[in-house]
């Protein structure tokens, strides 16, 4: 059977990708952030997952306002990095895992999570920046990746509870998979940031740090947090943090936090990184 051994929460700020791609990670502005990523890279290279399920949001790239799927699961063999307006990022093609992805799609839908199945899509910074953060700059990504894109751009995004419950259903699906697979799930986006309007640039360190801590200490509080609290307290685009609850829901009750990092700013955004090992 498959087994979800750990969850990773991380921001997916596009400027972090640009800093890596342009070789700026040792510059004074970026060095403290990237120093904080080193332990996570070491951890992931030791874990050697067979597959990563990566929860992220598309930013008007593969999807636009034409069609807005709430949850879209990529079942393809590969996903090319997207041209987001200045050419695709110079990173490897993302290889999928169609067997597990199709199994997940079937299992989720028959368990009444009516997700969208995607056979072809490019993946934007929302997916590739977390890979760069945790893997550096390899010639090939070290594991296949199953993309799970969540709508957090058009209101209403899914509720925190729905995200958490989706995570639980993902865990059931992975548990029921025939082959022995070691799976790590990523929840990405956030932390506090607002990119638009006169309030652009708002940061709320207290909210963010409480969010990070409550992933282990009080996940129930996070599950019940309404959208307006994210928008008011963590900035309009801070709503991305609901995606971390899919990751948290896919872990059991008995988890251990093995790493946490928080840094302000990366461009417009407060960045967080957390690693949670699943003991159950």
């Amino acid at each position, binding site marked *: 059977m498959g087994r979800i051994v750990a969850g990773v929460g991380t921001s997916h700020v596009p400027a972090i990708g640009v800093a890596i791609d342009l070789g700026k990670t040792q510059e004074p502005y970026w060095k403290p952030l990237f120093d904080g990523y080193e332990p996570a890279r070491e951890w992931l290279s030791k874990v050697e997952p067979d597959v990563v399920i990566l929860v992220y949001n598309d930013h008007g790239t593969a999807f636009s*306002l034409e069609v807005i799927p709430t949850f879209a699961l990529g079942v393809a063999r590969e996903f090319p990095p997207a041209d987001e307006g200045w050419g695709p990022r110079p990173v490897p093609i993302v290889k999928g895992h169609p067997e597990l992805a199709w199994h997940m799609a079937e299992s989720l839908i028959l368990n009444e999570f009516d997700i969208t199945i995607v056979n072809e899509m490019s993946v934007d910074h929302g997916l590739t920046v977390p890979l760069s953060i945790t893997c550096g700059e390899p010639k090939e990504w070290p594991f296949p990746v199953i993309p799970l894109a969540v709508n957090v751009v058009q209101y209403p995004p899914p509720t925190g509870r729905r995200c958490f419950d989706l995570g639980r259903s993902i865990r059931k699906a992975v548990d029921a998979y025939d082959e022995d697979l070691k799976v790590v799930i990523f929840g990405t986006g956030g932390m506090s940031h607002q990119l638009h309007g006169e309030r*652009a640039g*708002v940061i709320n*360190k207290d909210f963010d740090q409480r969010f990070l801590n409550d992933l282990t200490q009080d996940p129930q509080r996070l599950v019940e947090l309404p959208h307006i609290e994210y*928008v*008011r307290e963590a900035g*309009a685009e801070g709503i991305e943090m609901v995606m971390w609850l899919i990751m948290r829901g896919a872990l059991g009750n008995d988890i251990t936090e093995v790493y946490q990092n928080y840094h*302000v700013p990366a461009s417009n955004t*407060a960045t967080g990184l957390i690693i949670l090992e699943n003991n159950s």
Partner: protein
Amino acid sequence: MTDTSGFDDIPGTYLFNKDRCHEGYHLNMFCMSLMKAENREAFRSDEAAYLDQFPLLTLEQRRCVLERDWLGMIHVGGNIYYTSKLGATDGLSFQYLAGAMSGMTQEEYREMMIAGGRPINGNRSKSEKG
């Protein structure tokens, strides 16, 4: 009906709800068209003619695009993930756009972020702002 008016109390924030999606659809889809290099080139060579391909844009939406009124675009249904594609076409960063929308130069905005960002205190509610 889902009521999102509670969000209107948050200052300087424009929830991308059904009304804004509806109002801004053609503006945002114009921005989406700039994801293709040949469209960016066509737009740059004659902006007004390129915009004529989007006849459902309102006059105000056209004005905002042509004058690069970044906050104005948000007021008429623009979504930042789409208007930033126009910004990218112009070679402008998110920090430039964020500064422009909040009345700061890019340098002032960048310094504010390095100093910890725009404080949340005083920015939660319009009543708090006074």
